[in-house]
């Protein structure tokens, strides 16, 4: 296990700044996920931690020891790649044993560890094959075996599931999670897939354009996004965003956009007061819109269904409230058809208010 500390870490490729002033602590045995869109700097950050990229500025420490100039083979890391990166000329056995052979581990111990890892990953029957004779899922298991057999201090995984089909992705994801639970080693995992991030991570780092947008537990990231980017990046279907303004409604305030009027209460009211007259962006997750209960919260509203997308386990519908188009999530029993009028309410505390100019969530 290792504690990783990134302090003011930056990486530039010529004039292009790929990672900017990254400050991050990865705790012993933690499963940390770097999440973000393509080109956000997450893989570069992982490569810097691995020692495969030099950093331009800042300090990187493993267990307090500065490793800025320590080459990868002296960092006691293991890495799994999106492309598997298996040695094509070696058998599965030799692929898994390669790191141990380099470390001059006794042959008997190598054999024992390779076979144990292969059994754990259910690839024991493939040990004599070459990578070219394996399926994608089998290859990724070999890549995982190559990593775990070395008992490294840190596992680094660069989108290891991205090349697998949907069903294999789910099973391999479960395998990785159980590996972490069994090994309790520090994992740093890069992905652009929010489902992977949410299901695997102890904590998630959301990155965009080389900058950390938010660091927190999956619950925090999902339920208390710090800005519009994080709010939009997590959640499927995406959070609804409605531009509007805060206007007085009697003694209180309300969010107003055309015919959509949401009276504000509690913390939302406090936040709205601080914002004053500046324009705001209302964020509303589809599953937070209550279509079954008419009462409570912000009162009952009506919406005209314009699109129905049944998924089997649930149904997504697009519905219009005045000029505003919302996406709602219905359970599979709720009937919905284009042209139907839907009644919905928004329970208290389920809305997110962002400053329209800065995109940052309104502070309480």
């Amino acid at each position: 296990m290792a504690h990783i500390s990134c302090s003011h870490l930056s990486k530039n490729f010529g004039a292009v700044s790929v990672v900017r002033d990254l400050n991050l602590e990865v705790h012993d045995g933690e499963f940390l996920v770097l999440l973000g869109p393509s080109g956000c700097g997450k893989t570069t950050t992982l490569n810097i931690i691995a020692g495969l990229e030099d950093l331009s500025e800042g300090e990187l420490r493993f267990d307090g020891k500065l490793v800025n100039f320590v080459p990868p083979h002296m960092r006691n890391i293991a890495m799994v790649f999106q492309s598997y990166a298996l040695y094509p000329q070696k058998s599965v056995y030799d692929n898994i044993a390669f790191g141990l052979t380099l470390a001059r581990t006794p042959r008997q111990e190598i054999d024992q560890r390779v076979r144990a890892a292969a059994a754990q990953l259910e690839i024991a029957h493939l040990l004599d094959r070459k990578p070219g004779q394996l399926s994608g899922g089998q290859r990724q298991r070999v890549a995982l075996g190559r990593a775990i057999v070395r008992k490294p201090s840190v596992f680094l995984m660069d989108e290891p599931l991205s090349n697998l089909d949907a069903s294999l992705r789910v099973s391999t994801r479960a395998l990785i999670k159980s590996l972490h639970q069994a090994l309790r080693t520090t994992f740093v995992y890069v992905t652009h897939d929010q489902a992977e991030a949410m299901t695997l991570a102890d904590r998630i780092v959301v990155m965009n354009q080389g900058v950390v947008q938010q660091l927190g537990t999956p619950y925090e990231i999902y339920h208390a996004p710090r800005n519009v980017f994080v709010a939009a990046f997590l959640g499927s279907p995406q959070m609804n965003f409605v531009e509007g303004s805060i206007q007085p409604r009697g003694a209180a305030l309300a969010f107003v956009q055309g015919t959509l009027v949401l009276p504000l209460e509690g913390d939302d009211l406090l936040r709205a007061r601080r914002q004053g007259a500046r324009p705001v962006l209302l964020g509303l997750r589809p599953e937070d819109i209550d279509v079954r209960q008419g009462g409570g919260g912000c009162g009952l509203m009506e919406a005209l269904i314009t699109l129905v997308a049944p998924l089997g386990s649930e149904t997504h519908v697009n519905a219009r409230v005045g000029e505003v188009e919302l996406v709602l999530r219905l359970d599979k029993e709720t009937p919905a058809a284009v042209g139907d009028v839907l009644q919905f309410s928004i329970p208290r505390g389920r809305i997110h208010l962002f400053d329209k100019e800065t995109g940052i969530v309104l502070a309480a």
Partner: protein
Amino acid sequence: MNVLSGPAPAQAPHKPIWPVLAPKLVILTGSLLFLAYVLGPIYWVFASSMMSESEIVSKPPNWVPDELNLQNFRSIFFYSEEKVTYETRRATDPTAGSFVPSAAQNLVPALLNSLTVGAWVAALNILLSLTAAYAIARIRFRGRNAALYSILATRVIPDIALVVPLFLVMRNLDLVDSKLALVISYLAITLPFTMYILINYFESIPVDLERAARADGCSHFQVLWHVFLPIGMPAVVASLLFAFLSSWNEFLLALILTSTINGQTLPIVISGFVFDFTTSFSFINAAGVVAIIPPVLLAILFERHIVGGLTAGAVKG
């Protein structure tokens, strides 16, 4: 039971066969002609090396030797002092005899010289070009592009322009008429090419493989040895063959830089037979056969390594 009912299907109209057959015949004829063009001279060298002089010069040509005469090969490998002199040459029917040139005794030493020079050039090429190509293909360092382009720029200069400067350098180093002079010169000529072959191949190897090896605990040298060398074997073998064959066939520099059998290679010695007063076509062709065999054997030996697709399964295709 016949389950079909109704009228019997109409018989298909007879299709002319020529439109289908003609293109195939054209391709076959073209291929055979090309094969004859390529293999004809080689066959003639082999066949005539075992013919008598009269058979070689006969009209119409005698394509198949009347009898297999291995006298020339015996003369090359078991040279005796019974060489032909001007007097014996005059006393013999020139179309009947197989004359052994006076310099025939130099063939085996020249063969060994060629093998020695070729082996050194090939070995040094691999050693130097592998490390240099890996560094240029995979390590980002200041001056990388300048190094690459300056190496390639040396090949823009024709060999003939280098002959005199090289001779002067070798003379000053007291290396004229030595195999070392040839090894150094051939290395300078072949190294940019072999580096270029390997750089291109190494750049095509997925970067994740190198990264995986480094994460597995490899230093740069170990990445080269354990990953790039096995995967790059087709390019390595191609470079090795190129370096060996280039030095095996090279004539101009060997002619200028060597003067005795101490350093002379096969092309120089064989070319000398043409000027011998006992020019024997069959003997020259036998020497040609001897010159052909080592590179052919080398190519056969390494042929199985010159195959593509060695990265199959390495990364997601």
